[in-house]
């Protein structure tokens, strides 16, 4: 197999890796916010449920969670899981990352002094307005470095989809390396992950810079 064939074969995996990455972010960034807010709910059962959810998601390996999401429907309910492979991966990643993002958001929200809420109330802001116009813009700024951290981890975690034999970059690298008895595919995969993360770093730095309000 020539180098260019290897590269073009692996490029299909790069696209799949990107899909996992993008869909996970699109799903888990907003879901994390919902989870973070529910975590502070006044209704105790909701709070308890969310705490348990976060605890399980963070306390068990993502690899294991992926297996459960993929094979669970069959083992628990006897369902046919014909085309469930990709959806299972996305569900697994989104729910897992939402738990981490929720805790990052919570840290951000709780770092805002209570005085600001009181001041907003005095000034006649509704709760929703207070959150959207005063709290959130500050929170986003505070949590940015932690979010960047998670996003970079996510780029590398996409390789866990190999547990479900999804043909992303890492699975492909393994298979091509096996059939061609060459370590080149792993090198290509390594460069791919590094470049992807380099792009993430640049983009996130830009975003952080664009948020230098409240200096």
């Amino acid at each position: 197999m020539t180098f260019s064939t290897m590269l073009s074969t692996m490029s299909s995996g790069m696209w799949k890796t990107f899909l996992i990455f993008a869909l996970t972010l699109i799903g888990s960034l907003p879901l994390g916010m919902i989870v973070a807010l529910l975590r502070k709910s006044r209704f105790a059962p909701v709070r308890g449920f969310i705490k348990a959810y976060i605890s399980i998601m963070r306390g068990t390996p993502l690899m294991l969670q992926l297996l459960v999401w993929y094979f669970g429907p069959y083992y628990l309910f006897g369902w046919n899981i014909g085309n469930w492979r990709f959806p299972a991966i996305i569900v697994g990643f989104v729910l897992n990352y939402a738990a981490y993002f929720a805790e990052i958001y919570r840290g951000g929200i709780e770092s805002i002094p209570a005085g600001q809420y009181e001041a907003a109330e005095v000034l006649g802001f509704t709760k929703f307005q207070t959150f959207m116009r005063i709290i959130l813009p500050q929170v986003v700024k505070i949590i940015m470095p932690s979010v960047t951290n998670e996003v970079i981890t996510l780029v590398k975690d996409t390789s866990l989809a190999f547990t479900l034999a999804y043909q992303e970059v890492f699975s492909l690298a393994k298979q091509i390396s096996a059939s061609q008895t060459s370590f080149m595919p792993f090198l290509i995969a390594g460069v791919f992950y590094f470049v992807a993360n380099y792009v993430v770093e640049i983009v996130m730095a830009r975003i952080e810079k664009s948020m230098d309000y409240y200096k």
Partner: protein
Amino acid sequence: MKKRLTALMLVFAMIFTMAVLTACGGGGSDEGSSDSKYGEGFVFKHGFDLDYRPYSFVDDNGENGGFDVEMAKAVCDFYGWEYEAVPFNWDAKDAELNAGSCDCIWSGFTINGREDDYLWSEPYSDNTQKIMVKKDSGIATLADLAGKKVGVQTATSAYELLNDEEGQKELMETFADLNVYDTYTIAITDLNAGAIDAVAVDVTRAQEAMAKDDSLVCLEENLGSEQYGIGFRKDDQELCDLVNVALEALAADGTVAKIAANYPEIEEYITLGK
């Protein structure tokens, strides 16, 4: 008191949800198993390991190739079925098959020892388990393996043979260590790197490796011998019969011989039509 009540309600809610989900699931899986769905246009989902040269692997053009892949495609052409490749992880093959993400396990799959676990097609290839060592290792018989480190790929027939009381477990217990790998490629790399002394492997996979690297050699003695077949779900008699008919027809019209000629290292072991 209030807390206890909420807890109780939560438990009930959970049980209720699970019961409903289970009921739905049970209903769903029973339907559609009786009528014939294998007409033209049926999507034949071929489950295989992409790291099992020369039966199923990524070929030089970056496509799925191998004897089993080409045969499965030929069977699909025979019936006008649509071919769908389902590469899976070998250790998850049973779950994949039972859960319906593929219709068969067709990937150099050993029948012996698993006779009752699947519905088997006619055997199509002979296979023998061998011990592969470095030429200069000084290991010449199975007995020489005592105190040596041996590698094997997980969930393969060689692995099962070495862990089977009626197989070669006794031999395995003389090893210093049995290293279990994800793929034979890594096991063989480790053998070359000197981390292990021998690899227990199917003869066809061994020949493949020896063709590329002449410092490797197989022991005369066999570890075991067996046959390859296609494994179907136990309730899928119709599909199994159809594939058997197709295999016979493809052997008769020379298609099998033509495909086998692409894989000289296993050509002599293919038993279809012989």
